[in-house]
């Protein structure tokens, strides 16, 4: 195998204007009495060129959803469509190619390989695929995200905010269909967190990128276009043009025992 496979397009499509779509998604862990249903028939549409937050209490299934969406985990049943591709139908090699070519990742922490410089980390996906990154696009990104003078540094020589910005550059460099962010501000102080959110916002507004972010933080969610709420592994509503206040209200309703608050 000289070249890793390229992600194959499949006939099923998520729908016009949709970046991704979950249809009746079920994910179970364990067997017998220890069986846990992390996703219990979740159906969600993620609109293109929008910034979407996924929220919910611990155990609501938001992390599992994110894993399925990012091709890191496979649903037990149901469909997880990324553009025109049903991720559940792909083998490991094809999923790897999807992650490399069509997805970008920003995690809470530990986004960068500690022994590679920031620049090398940025080029990692392209290097793994055996091709060269788009130089002009790369230059634009590193300048726009303010890490141009940090490319020769090791992650340990960068601040937490700088590390996350490098991770965002890496995520955007391949012009992915979708950028998946898992609590990206979780390990940052409030100032650096706000700066990072503004950057993600700009990615959507200026570069037309689709971003999905899992978060606990209502202030972070307030930066997005839309909040998708999960509860017990199912969709529990959406908040359009969220504010900190509307998000807190809806979360409060969700947290109340069924039948009382709603």
């Amino acid at each position, binding site marked *: 195998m000289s070249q890793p496979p390229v992600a194959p397009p499949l006939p099923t499509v998520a729908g016009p204007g949709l970046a991704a779509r979950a249809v009746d998604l079920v994910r179970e862990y364990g067997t017998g009495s220890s069986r846990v249903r992390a996703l219990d028939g979740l159906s969600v549409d993620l609109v293109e060129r929008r910034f979407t937050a996924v929220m919910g209490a611990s155990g609501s299934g938001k992390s599992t959803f994110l894993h399925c969406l990012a091709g890191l985990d496979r649903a037990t049943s149901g469909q997880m469509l990324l553009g025109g591709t049903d991720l559940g139908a792909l083998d490991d090699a094809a999923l790897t190619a999807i992650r490399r070519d069509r997805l970008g990742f920003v995690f809470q922490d*530990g986004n960068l390989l500690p022994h590679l410089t920031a620049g090398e980390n940025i080029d990692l996906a392209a290097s793994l695929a055996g091709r060269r990154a788009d130089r002009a696009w790369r230059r634009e990104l590193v300048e726009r995200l303010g890490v141009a003078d940090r490319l020769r540094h090791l992650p340990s020589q960068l601040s937490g905010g700088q590390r996350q910005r490098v991770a965002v550059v890496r995520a955007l460099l391949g012009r992915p269909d979708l950028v998946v962010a898992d609590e990206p501000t979780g390990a940052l102080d409030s100032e650096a967190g706000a700066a990072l959110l503004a950057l993600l916002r700009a990615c959507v507004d200026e570069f037309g990128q689709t971003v999905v972010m899992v978060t606990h933080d209502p202030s972070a969610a307030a930066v997005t276009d839309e909040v998708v709420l999960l509860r017990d592994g199912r969709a529990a509503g959406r908040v359009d043009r969220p504010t900190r206040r509307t998000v807190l209200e809806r979360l409060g309703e969700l947290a109340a025992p069924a039948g009382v608050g709603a």
Partner: protein
Amino acid sequence: MIVARTALRSVLRRPRQALLVGVAITAATAFAAVALLVAANARVALVAFGMVTPPAADVVVVPRGDVAQGAALEVAEGVRALPGVVDVAVEHLGDVEVEAGGVTTTWKLTSDPGGGPLSALRDAPDVGPLEPGGIVLGRRTAERVGVDVGDTVVAGGHELVVAGVGPVREFGQDVGLVHPSDAVAIGGMPPVQMFVVGDVDLAAVRAVAGDAAVTSGPEQRDREARSVGDTLAGVLGGLSVFVALAVVSAVVIVSSTFRIVLARRAAELALLRCVGATGRQVHRSVLAEAACVGLLGGLVGTGAGLGVAAGLVAAARAADLVSAPFVAAPGGLVACVALSVVATVAAALPSARAAGRTAPVVALGAARSSDARPVRVGARLVAAGALTLTAVATGAVAVPVARTDQLTGLALAALSGTLVFAVLVAVGPFLVRWAARAVRPLAARSAALRLAVSNAHRSSRRTAAMTTVLTLGVGLAAALLVAVAGVTADARESVVRTFGADALIPVDVVADPDALVAALAAHPAVDARVVGTDILLDPAPGTDPAALRDAVLDTVPAGTSVYWAGDVLAGIEQTVAVGQLVGAAMIGVTLVVAMVGVVVTLALSVAERRQEIALVRALGVSRAGARRSVAAEAGLASAVGATLGVVLGGAYGVLALRVLDMPAGQPPLVRLALLGAGVVGAAVLAAAVPMRSAGRVEPAIGLAAR
């Protein structure tokens, strides 16, 4: 490309960790390099020592047994008279008392024709000539005794003038070459062989030579070359067995350390998978990293080996055992580095496979550290059962097979031992868990001990890696102890059997045996009698052996051969002791690798469990308690290894004795117990560094969010 670069970076950014992972293979490679270089340099010495027939000799005549001086010279005259004979030289050899510079010592004197193609001086025109009344000294001999050309020395009462100082093989002794006529005159230098030059018929020489062995020069030189080759092959074979053992031990240790290191870096590997590395690329990057570690370890190890070997050869040169320049064998050294790379890559194969299968989702969640992954019990136990049965069967067959073919028997015993080692590798984790469960009640009183026991139980694979290699080292040492005890007992028995007395004098070396027995018996300290072809000598009742020796030496004529049982036994015991020392040094390398394994495994284990140690510290375990827990873990692992090693090694020692048809006798229980206790003590001592770092963990980091 990115794969190799990432791997290389990973090693370069963490050189300490790379060295830590590779230190076991570094030690093994150093040993391989030392073994190789010592063998290469010994080759030169062995050739010098073993190739003694001059190239010009066309025929070699070697008398059988002791031959009287006159008879040998008669044969020489007879051969000289044969048609076609150009030259004949009789070589006399003996240890002679020589007085030089006022000091008398025993020299090894050899006769030399003094000139012509059969002379040792043929290639040294500036030395000599050696004529009757002269002597040529070895360079170091001349330096040691402080004499030079023109000085006089006295050999066996004959004054000899130093005619030259030159190319005489010395091997650490005082040596000299004398003219054959002087050799006869000095006495105590029997003729040992005769070289003939000329186009002469072998049958004709045989007719003259009586029962002496007659060989053509080329055949004799060929035989010597073969004998040197055989010796070398034996040395190399023995060395490579021990090098292989050390390398196998290193592979077990490196394999375990790789697993620990990669488990710690699971999130990093998962991140690679997240950004689109295929499982294959991750797998390859781990193997490439292993190759880098192996290369680094190989270079350091080979360099260290080169240094040690150069030191050993310099010491040998100082002792005149080697005179040739140091042989560096660059090809062999490259092979040592390659061995290190290959062994390290092989050791990393299982963890590389596991790394390739890392789920990318690990990058998102908390990294599952440690190798608490369950071991597939069923498959391992079935494999271990089959291997154990094969090992027992092979061991059982070895003894009867050895009756007809001892070498095959030994090979079978070795195979059986290898199989048992394989079983240990397979079931090591279960043994460790079983041992941990067994000692758990003992640890109930101490939190630190309980922690150690539960940790050994949980990380049974890495504990087992320490244990397995320790078992191998201790097992070899125990087998050596048992075998040495057996061989010594056997030697003692056979000496008693063949002598049947404290000393004996063969009847045929004495002119008038009856008179001698009568003279000896007359002495109050001696009990002398003739049994068969020997005069047997014992101390008379009430006298001690020393008195017997004095009495016998006073009574027998000078030059009579007296064989003392005590001397023969001491000689054998000295040989056994040298063998034991060499064996212990070889096995010592495996034990060193095992100790390295203990240190590295515990150091990595402590580094991985900093959080956990901090937590128990926060919950009230003292600094000393944290240290004790590491010591207890080392103690537990080494106790399992030492016990298994002593039991299995002892059993295989007995098996080896049975194969060699020697009585096993009383096993050296005290020595075995000391060996086991020593290894446990050494392991706990080796744990000092990881203990210190465990004690240094601050409780606060246990409470910090990850």
